Protein backbone atom coordinates (compact mmCIF):
# COMPACT_ATOMS: atom_id res chain seq x y z
CA UNK A 1 0.00 0.00 0.00
CA UNK A 2 1.29 3.39 -0.96
CA UNK A 3 1.27 6.32 1.45
CA UNK A 4 0.97 8.76 -1.40
CA UNK A 5 -2.36 10.47 -1.90
CA UNK A 6 -3.99 10.75 -5.33
CA UNK A 7 -3.25 14.48 -5.27
CA UNK A 8 0.48 13.89 -4.71
CA UNK A 9 0.63 11.60 -7.72
CA UNK A 10 -0.75 14.23 -10.10
CA UNK A 11 1.00 17.30 -8.67
CA UNK A 12 3.63 18.60 -11.05
CA UNK A 13 2.29 16.72 -14.01
CA UNK A 14 0.64 19.89 -15.24
CA UNK A 15 -2.78 20.50 -16.71
CA UNK A 16 -4.13 18.53 -19.62
CA UNK A 17 -3.53 21.71 -21.67
CA UNK A 18 -6.70 21.11 -23.65
CA UNK A 19 -10.34 20.68 -22.71
CA UNK A 20 -12.09 23.96 -23.39
CA UNK A 21 -12.72 23.29 -27.09
CA UNK A 22 -15.88 21.31 -26.42
CA UNK A 23 -17.10 23.79 -23.81
CA UNK A 24 -16.76 26.55 -26.39
CA UNK A 25 -18.15 24.49 -29.28
CA UNK A 26 -21.19 23.57 -27.17
CA UNK A 27 -21.96 27.25 -26.62
CA UNK A 28 -21.29 28.20 -30.25
CA UNK A 29 -23.61 25.47 -31.56
CA UNK A 30 -26.21 26.50 -28.95
CA UNK A 31 -26.16 30.12 -30.11
CA UNK A 32 -26.27 29.04 -33.77
CA UNK A 33 -29.19 26.73 -33.02
CA UNK A 34 -31.40 29.52 -31.59
CA UNK A 35 -32.25 31.33 -34.86
CA UNK A 36 -32.06 28.06 -36.82
CA UNK A 37 -34.60 26.41 -34.50
CA UNK A 38 -36.95 29.39 -34.83
CA UNK A 39 -36.61 29.12 -38.62
CA UNK A 40 -37.28 25.38 -38.36
CA UNK A 41 -40.45 26.00 -36.33
CA UNK A 42 -41.68 28.53 -38.91
CA UNK A 43 -41.00 25.92 -41.61
CA UNK A 44 -42.92 23.20 -39.73
CA UNK A 45 -45.85 25.61 -39.24
CA UNK A 46 -45.88 26.49 -42.96
CA UNK A 47 -45.68 22.81 -43.98
CA UNK A 48 -48.52 21.72 -41.70
CA UNK A 49 -51.44 20.24 -43.59
CA UNK A 50 -49.73 20.42 -47.00
CA UNK A 51 -49.66 17.55 -49.47
CA UNK A 52 -46.55 15.47 -50.19
CA UNK A 53 -45.62 17.21 -53.50
CA UNK A 54 -46.01 20.64 -51.86
CA UNK A 55 -43.82 19.62 -48.89
CA UNK A 56 -41.13 18.33 -51.26
CA UNK A 57 -41.23 21.47 -53.34
CA UNK A 58 -40.84 23.73 -50.28
CA UNK A 59 -38.03 21.59 -48.78
CA UNK A 60 -36.25 21.68 -52.16
CA UNK A 61 -35.93 25.47 -52.25
CA UNK A 62 -32.24 26.41 -51.78
CA UNK A 63 -32.66 28.84 -48.89
CA UNK A 64 -34.76 26.40 -46.86
CA UNK A 65 -32.45 23.46 -47.68
CA UNK A 66 -29.36 25.43 -46.56
CA UNK A 67 -31.07 26.55 -43.34
CA UNK A 68 -32.15 22.96 -42.65
CA UNK A 69 -28.63 21.62 -43.22
CA UNK A 70 -27.20 24.28 -40.89
CA UNK A 71 -29.83 23.37 -38.29
CA UNK A 72 -28.94 19.67 -38.56
CA UNK A 73 -25.19 20.33 -38.31
CA UNK A 74 -25.48 22.69 -35.31
CA UNK A 75 -27.86 20.41 -33.41
CA UNK A 76 -26.06 17.13 -34.10
CA UNK A 77 -22.72 18.55 -32.93
CA UNK A 78 -24.48 20.04 -29.89
CA UNK A 79 -26.24 16.70 -29.27
CA UNK A 80 -22.99 14.72 -29.53
CA UNK A 81 -21.21 16.91 -26.97
CA UNK A 82 -24.22 17.09 -24.65
CA UNK A 83 -24.76 13.32 -24.51
CA UNK A 84 -21.00 12.81 -24.11
CA UNK A 85 -21.02 15.06 -21.02
CA UNK A 86 -23.95 13.12 -19.55
CA UNK A 87 -22.14 9.79 -20.13
CA UNK A 88 -18.91 11.12 -18.60
CA UNK A 89 -20.82 12.39 -15.56
CA UNK A 90 -22.91 9.33 -14.76
CA UNK A 91 -21.19 6.22 -16.16
CA UNK A 92 -18.25 5.13 -14.00
CA UNK A 93 -17.47 1.69 -15.41
CA UNK A 94 -14.70 2.06 -17.97
CA UNK A 95 -15.97 -0.52 -20.48
CA UNK A 96 -19.54 0.79 -20.32
CA UNK A 97 -18.33 4.38 -20.58
CA UNK A 98 -16.19 3.88 -23.67
CA UNK A 99 -18.84 1.72 -25.33
CA UNK A 100 -21.47 4.41 -24.78
CA UNK A 101 -19.11 7.20 -25.86
CA UNK A 102 -18.44 5.33 -29.09
CA UNK A 103 -22.13 4.59 -29.71
CA UNK A 104 -22.85 8.27 -29.12
CA UNK A 105 -20.44 9.28 -31.88
CA UNK A 106 -21.95 6.68 -34.24
CA UNK A 107 -25.46 7.91 -33.42
CA UNK A 108 -24.61 11.58 -34.03
CA UNK A 109 -22.94 10.79 -37.37
CA UNK A 110 -25.79 8.52 -38.48
CA UNK A 111 -28.48 11.09 -37.65
CA UNK A 112 -26.53 14.02 -39.10
CA UNK A 113 -25.63 12.21 -42.31
CA UNK A 114 -29.14 10.79 -42.80
CA UNK A 115 -30.75 14.23 -42.42
CA UNK A 116 -28.24 16.02 -44.67
CA UNK A 117 -28.44 13.29 -47.33
CA UNK A 118 -32.25 13.42 -47.31
CA UNK A 119 -32.27 17.23 -47.65
CA UNK A 120 -29.79 17.11 -50.53
CA UNK A 121 -31.71 14.33 -52.27
CA UNK A 122 -34.93 16.33 -52.05
CA UNK A 123 -33.15 19.46 -53.27
CA UNK A 124 -31.50 17.81 -56.26
CA UNK A 125 -34.79 16.11 -57.04
CA UNK A 126 -33.55 12.63 -57.86
Amino acid sequence: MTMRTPLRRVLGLGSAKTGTEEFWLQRMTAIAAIPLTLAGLVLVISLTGRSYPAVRQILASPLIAVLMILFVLATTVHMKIGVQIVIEDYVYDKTQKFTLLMLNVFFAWAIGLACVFAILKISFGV
Partner: protein
Amino acid sequence: MAETQAPVQRPLSPHLQIYRLTLSMLMSGLHRITGLALCAGMVVLAWWLLAAATGQNAYGTFEGFATSWIGRLILFGFSWSLLHHLLGGLRYLIWDLGYGMEPAEREWLVRANIIGSILLTVLLWVILWVSGMR
Protein backbone atom coordinates in the same frame (compact mmCIF):
# COMPACT_ATOMS: atom_id res chain seq x y z
CA MET B 1 -13.06 11.86 -17.76
CA ALA B 2 -11.76 11.57 -14.23
CA GLU B 3 -11.76 8.13 -12.65
CA THR B 4 -13.49 7.84 -9.31
CA GLN B 5 -11.44 5.05 -7.76
CA ALA B 6 -9.86 6.42 -4.62
CA PRO B 7 -7.22 4.11 -3.10
CA VAL B 8 -7.78 5.55 0.37
CA GLN B 9 -11.11 5.99 2.14
CA ARG B 10 -11.64 9.71 2.53
CA PRO B 11 -14.60 11.80 3.63
CA LEU B 12 -16.80 12.69 0.67
CA SER B 13 -18.04 16.17 -0.08
CA PRO B 14 -21.78 16.61 0.43
CA HIS B 15 -23.81 15.68 -2.62
CA LEU B 16 -27.37 16.30 -3.85
CA GLN B 17 -29.18 14.44 -1.06
CA ILE B 18 -27.67 16.74 1.60
CA TYR B 19 -29.09 19.95 0.21
CA ARG B 20 -32.69 21.16 0.19
CA LEU B 21 -34.14 20.64 -3.27
CA THR B 22 -34.45 23.93 -5.13
CA LEU B 23 -36.21 24.74 -8.39
CA SER B 24 -32.93 25.63 -10.10
CA MET B 25 -31.50 22.20 -9.18
CA LEU B 26 -34.59 20.53 -10.61
CA MET B 27 -34.36 22.67 -13.74
CA SER B 28 -30.71 21.73 -14.20
CA GLY B 29 -31.75 18.08 -14.30
CA LEU B 30 -34.67 18.89 -16.57
CA HIS B 31 -32.31 20.62 -19.01
CA ARG B 32 -30.35 17.38 -19.36
CA ILE B 33 -33.48 15.22 -19.56
CA THR B 34 -35.05 17.39 -22.27
CA GLY B 35 -31.71 17.34 -24.11
CA LEU B 36 -31.66 13.54 -24.03
CA ALA B 37 -35.31 13.41 -25.12
CA LEU B 38 -34.38 15.55 -28.11
CA CYS B 39 -32.01 12.78 -29.27
CA ALA B 40 -35.15 10.73 -29.91
CA GLY B 41 -36.63 13.88 -31.47
CA MET B 42 -33.71 13.92 -33.92
CA VAL B 43 -34.57 10.33 -34.90
CA VAL B 44 -38.10 11.48 -35.75
CA LEU B 45 -36.68 14.45 -37.71
CA ALA B 46 -34.43 12.06 -39.66
CA TRP B 47 -37.41 9.77 -40.30
CA TRP B 48 -39.47 12.71 -41.59
CA LEU B 49 -36.71 13.93 -43.94
CA LEU B 50 -35.83 10.42 -45.18
CA ALA B 51 -39.53 9.67 -45.76
CA ALA B 52 -39.90 12.91 -47.74
CA ALA B 53 -36.81 11.98 -49.77
CA THR B 54 -37.99 8.39 -50.35
CA GLY B 55 -41.46 8.86 -51.81
CA GLN B 56 -45.21 9.18 -51.43
CA ASN B 57 -45.71 5.85 -49.62
CA ALA B 58 -42.93 6.38 -47.08
CA TYR B 59 -44.21 9.91 -46.45
CA GLY B 60 -47.72 8.53 -45.99
CA THR B 61 -46.41 6.17 -43.30
CA PHE B 62 -44.79 9.07 -41.49
CA GLU B 63 -47.96 11.15 -41.81
CA GLY B 64 -49.91 8.22 -40.38
CA PHE B 65 -47.66 8.30 -37.32
CA ALA B 66 -47.60 12.10 -37.01
CA THR B 67 -51.39 12.47 -37.19
CA SER B 68 -52.21 9.56 -34.84
CA TRP B 69 -53.04 10.50 -31.25
CA ILE B 70 -49.92 8.78 -29.90
CA GLY B 71 -47.81 10.45 -32.60
CA ARG B 72 -49.29 13.83 -31.75
CA LEU B 73 -48.58 13.23 -28.06
CA ILE B 74 -44.95 12.34 -28.83
CA LEU B 75 -44.52 15.36 -31.13
CA PHE B 76 -46.14 17.59 -28.49
CA GLY B 77 -43.59 16.24 -25.98
CA PHE B 78 -40.72 16.86 -28.37
CA SER B 79 -41.89 20.41 -29.12
CA TRP B 80 -42.06 21.18 -25.39
CA SER B 81 -38.62 19.58 -24.84
CA LEU B 82 -37.19 21.67 -27.68
CA LEU B 83 -38.65 24.97 -26.43
CA HIS B 84 -37.75 24.16 -22.82
CA HIS B 85 -34.17 23.28 -23.78
CA LEU B 86 -33.92 26.40 -25.94
CA LEU B 87 -35.12 28.72 -23.15
CA GLY B 88 -32.93 26.82 -20.65
CA GLY B 89 -29.98 27.35 -22.97
CA LEU B 90 -30.69 31.09 -23.05
CA ARG B 91 -30.76 31.04 -19.24
CA TYR B 92 -27.35 29.34 -19.13
CA LEU B 93 -25.96 31.80 -21.68
CA ILE B 94 -27.10 34.68 -19.45
CA TRP B 95 -25.41 33.00 -16.47
CA ASP B 96 -22.27 32.26 -18.54
CA LEU B 97 -22.02 35.98 -19.24
CA GLY B 98 -22.20 36.63 -15.50
CA TYR B 99 -25.66 38.20 -15.32
CA GLY B 100 -28.70 37.19 -13.30
CA MET B 101 -26.81 35.49 -10.48
CA GLU B 102 -28.59 37.20 -7.56
CA PRO B 103 -31.06 34.94 -5.68
CA ALA B 104 -34.17 36.81 -6.86
CA GLU B 105 -32.91 36.94 -10.45
CA ARG B 106 -32.07 33.22 -10.42
CA GLU B 107 -35.54 32.34 -9.20
CA TRP B 108 -37.10 34.62 -11.80
CA LEU B 109 -35.08 33.03 -14.58
CA VAL B 110 -35.94 29.41 -13.69
CA ARG B 111 -39.62 30.32 -13.32
CA ALA B 112 -39.60 32.18 -16.65
CA ASN B 113 -37.98 29.08 -18.18
CA ILE B 114 -40.65 26.58 -17.10
CA ILE B 115 -43.66 28.89 -17.53
CA GLY B 116 -42.34 30.27 -20.83
CA SER B 117 -41.72 26.82 -22.30
CA ILE B 118 -45.26 25.67 -21.47
CA LEU B 119 -46.85 28.86 -22.84
CA LEU B 120 -44.77 28.78 -26.04
CA THR B 121 -45.59 25.08 -26.62
CA VAL B 122 -49.31 25.75 -26.27
CA LEU B 123 -48.96 28.79 -28.55
CA LEU B 124 -47.10 26.69 -31.14
CA TRP B 125 -49.82 24.03 -31.21
CA VAL B 126 -52.57 26.67 -31.43
CA ILE B 127 -50.76 28.12 -34.46
CA LEU B 128 -50.33 24.61 -35.93
CA TRP B 129 -54.03 23.94 -35.41
CA VAL B 130 -55.07 27.27 -36.95
CA SER B 131 -52.73 26.75 -39.93
CA GLY B 132 -54.56 23.58 -40.93
CA MET B 133 -53.21 20.64 -38.92
CA ARG B 134 -54.77 17.43 -40.27
